[in-house]
């Protein structure tokens, strides 16, 4: 007996000793350079001199081409925003300011843009930015060598002419949105490794990427504009949500965006939580060619049956902005708040409409949801519950993202889905064009002659105020026809370690780290 007990004790003792011995050094010395500034959260609360760098946690790896003209994933664009710039670049207010261009002029007839190249501007590899690089970048996206255009909207260009310092772009007709397409990244012409080791002109330069591990950016010392405050930013990829929260608590990461209210509640005093918007239109998207969603009454009934505010309260602790059409508040002038409650929550009205449509006892439906997007999954649960009240039995089908893209988005083989759409450029067109009848991205098969006409009108309207009005008409059309059951623009909760300031929110999906800094 004693022997056995001794053996057990010795083994346990050895194990503890091993762990303790292993744990020892971290208290005394800094095991890695990263932790030099803040080995523990408690140390971060008291003012200690920080190394001039931060680690940002991201849930999605940059498993995409790093060539900005080919990048598709929003998560990749979000990071690489700090590396690339176009002739113009967006500001947090949604304006466009000159970047690689020093300034530009627009002719009287609004068809000719003249850009002057910024003097002395350099690429991260030390080469000066020359006019040929600018022309190369634009031509590459315009794709006039017969290949698929990277940016089809550039087809409005009639001609591009350039000398050493000025670039003249002439359009076939005036186009109020044209400038926003020129946020396309300017890349060096004689460089063929953009895919893996990208080179741009932004405030940060790309240093390295380790798959599923990290991405490292460093300050670009020869940046033309306001230099970045931080010397180095490491993006750490942590896909597991529990792990993400633990890494914030342990001090391994300093900033993390797109958190849920449940996650931020666990963080404690070491962090400030900043609230922005995700800038996407979350809705129950309905397939208009599948019964019963081909019926306007049914779609309207569902819109009445859903209580957006209850969804936001129940699943998102009250964070989120209710929406009524395919436009979100960050777009300012295009956003129509009066559409938000066009269909107020009204169970009786919903039942009445269902009866009119021939479904007095409701029906069964399937909501297909990409399982990797927790907010959409949680929304679906509440939506299904709310639909029960009007007799509609909604089954939630969780699918992998890849399956969603293939079956729902590409194949259009679905009944309904909950997901979110963002705008790739800061134009109303980026959100609204997809619902025109023949658009390749019109996965809900929306078809409204009025809508298509309005879109053509918008394209041919050159006065900004008038055009805005037309886009608003389009939003109204979507709402009146209950194209989708609109829900909300999700809140974007960003945890920022105390002592770190300068976070700006943009109306597009980016995280600008150039303005972040440690308070001295």
């Amino acid at each position, binding site marked *: 007996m004693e022997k056995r007990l001794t053996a*057990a004790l010795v083994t346990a003792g050895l194990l503890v000793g*091993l*762990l303790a011995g292993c744990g020892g050094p971290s208290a005394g010395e800094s095991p890695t350079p990263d932790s030099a500034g803040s080995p523990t959260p408690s140390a971060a609360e008291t003012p200690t001199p920080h190394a001039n760098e931060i680690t940002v946690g991201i849930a999605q790896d940059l498993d995409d081409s790093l060539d900005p003209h080919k990048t598709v994933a929003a998560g990749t664009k979000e990071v690489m925003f700090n590396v690339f710039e176009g002739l113009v670049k967006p500001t947090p207010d949604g304006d466009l300011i000159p970047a690689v261009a020093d300034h530009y002029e627009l002719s009287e007839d609004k068809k000719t843009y003249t850009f002057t190249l910024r003097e002395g501007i350099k690429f991260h590899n030390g080469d000066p930015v020359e006019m040929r690089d600018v022309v190369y970048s634009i031509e590459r996206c315009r794709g006039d060598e017969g290949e698929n255009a990277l940016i089809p909207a550039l087809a409005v260009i009639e001609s591009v002419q350039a000398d050493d310092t000025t670039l003249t772009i002439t359009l076939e007709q005036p186009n109020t949105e044209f400038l926003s397409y020129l946020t396309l990244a300017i890349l060096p012409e004689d460089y063929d490794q953009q895919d893996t080791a990208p080179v741009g002109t932004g405030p940060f330069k790309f240093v390295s990427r380790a798959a599923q591990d990290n991405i490292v950016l460093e300050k670009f010392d020869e940046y033309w504009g306001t230099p970045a405050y931080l010397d180095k930013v490491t993006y750490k990829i942590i896909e597991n949500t529990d792990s993400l929260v633990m890494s914030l608590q*342990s*001090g391994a990461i300093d900033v993390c965006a797109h958190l849920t209210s449940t996650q931020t509640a666990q963080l404690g005093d070491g962090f400030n939580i900043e609230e922005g918007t995700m800038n996407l239109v979350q809705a129950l998207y309905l397939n208009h060619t599948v019964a019963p969603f081909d019926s306007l009454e049914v779609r309207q009934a569902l819109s009445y049956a859903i209580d957006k505010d209850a969804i936001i309260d129940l699943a998102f602790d009250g964070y989120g902005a209710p929406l009524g059409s395919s436009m979100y508040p960050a777009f300012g002038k295009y956003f129509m708040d009066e559409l938000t409650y066009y269909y107020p929550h009204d169970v009786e009205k919903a039942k009445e409409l269902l009866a009119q449509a021939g479904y007095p006892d409701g029906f069964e439906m399937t909501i297909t949801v990409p399982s990797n997007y927790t907010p959409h999954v949680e929304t679906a649960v509440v939506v299904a519950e709310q639909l029960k009240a009007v007799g509609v039995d909604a089954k939630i089908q969780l699918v992998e993202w890849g399956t969603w893209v293939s079956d729902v988005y590409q194949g259009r083989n679905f009944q309904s889905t909950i997901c979110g759409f963002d705008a790739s450029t800061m134009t109303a067109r980026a959100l609204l064009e997809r619902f025109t009848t023949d658009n390749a991205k019109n996965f809900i098969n929306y078809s409204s002659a009025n809508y298509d006409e309005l879109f053509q009108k918008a394209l041919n309207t050159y006065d900004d105020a008038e055009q805005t009005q037309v886009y608003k008409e389009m939003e109204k059309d979507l709402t009146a026809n209950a194209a989708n059951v609109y829900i909300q623009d999700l809140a974007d909760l960003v945890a920022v370690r105390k002592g770190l300031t300068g976070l700006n929110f943009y109306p597009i999906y980016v995280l600008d780290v150039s303005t972040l800094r440690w308070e001295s």
Partner: protein
Amino acid sequence: MKYAAKRVAMLVLTMVIVSLLAFLAFDLISGNPAEIMLGTEATPEKVAALEHELGLDRPLAEQYLDWIAGFFTGDLGLSYSYKVPVWDLIAPKIAVTLCLSLLSFVLIVLVSIPLGLGSGGKAGGPLEGLGTVLDQLCMAVPAFFLGILLTWLFSTTLKWFVHGQFPGLGEDLWGSLRYLLFAAVAIAVPRIAMTVRMLRSTVLSEMNKDYVRTAISRGNDRGEVLRRHVLKNSLTPIVTFLGQTMAEIVAGSIVVEQVFAIPGLGRLLVSSISNRDHPVVQAIVVILAFWVVLSGTIADLINQGIDPRLRREAGR
């Protein structure tokens, strides 16, 4: 020797079948790499162009043979997602996962063999009940949950390690091993509990056999009998079990890596599957399958060495 040759032939055959399955699996499930890469920007024209660029429009047989040839020339192709050679992508991950697996295996062997023999050799003591409860508790705890508990205790509370700050094997080997140790414990504990229980019952059934009773009744020391005879006779099932453990640890590490934010093979495998990054998934699957088959083969060959009866049977 003949037996060894047979085993190796089996191994090769298994690998061929696995490679075929790994290759064809993607044809059976929905989701096309080009569509996923383009996401919500996808149009039929763009998808077709990208498929051509990736070589997905070639005949399946040609794609398979090219890929198999790659294993011999060392050129496993480019990752669709990362645009870098597959081998460059997975080599550092294999090193990390291998370290984690070996560390877990060493823990399992070091802890479970003395515990199992001890508890099996002396059954019926007052601590018996407590031991069984503890054993079952450890067996029931899933590794990922244990990982969360360990992190809470050693990182959040005791601050023995900084969760999420894995230094990287190349940069700080000792720091990395220390970080991996906590994950290894999470993987090892449930397996230790299983091994102890298995050892205990093997030893107990061996202890009840006539030869043991005879040996003890003839005045031999109980501990001596346990070490010299019982252990030897219990060894074959233990080796087989440890062989299985070796294979299962890798599966366990895939889950635990996520909890501890360790950049190993597991995270890359999971993300590559959802991205339909065929070249990466196929290479990893084949490597993992090789690992599993290899641990089984090694265990068998060791057993051959231990037990002459197995050698004679195989020879026939």
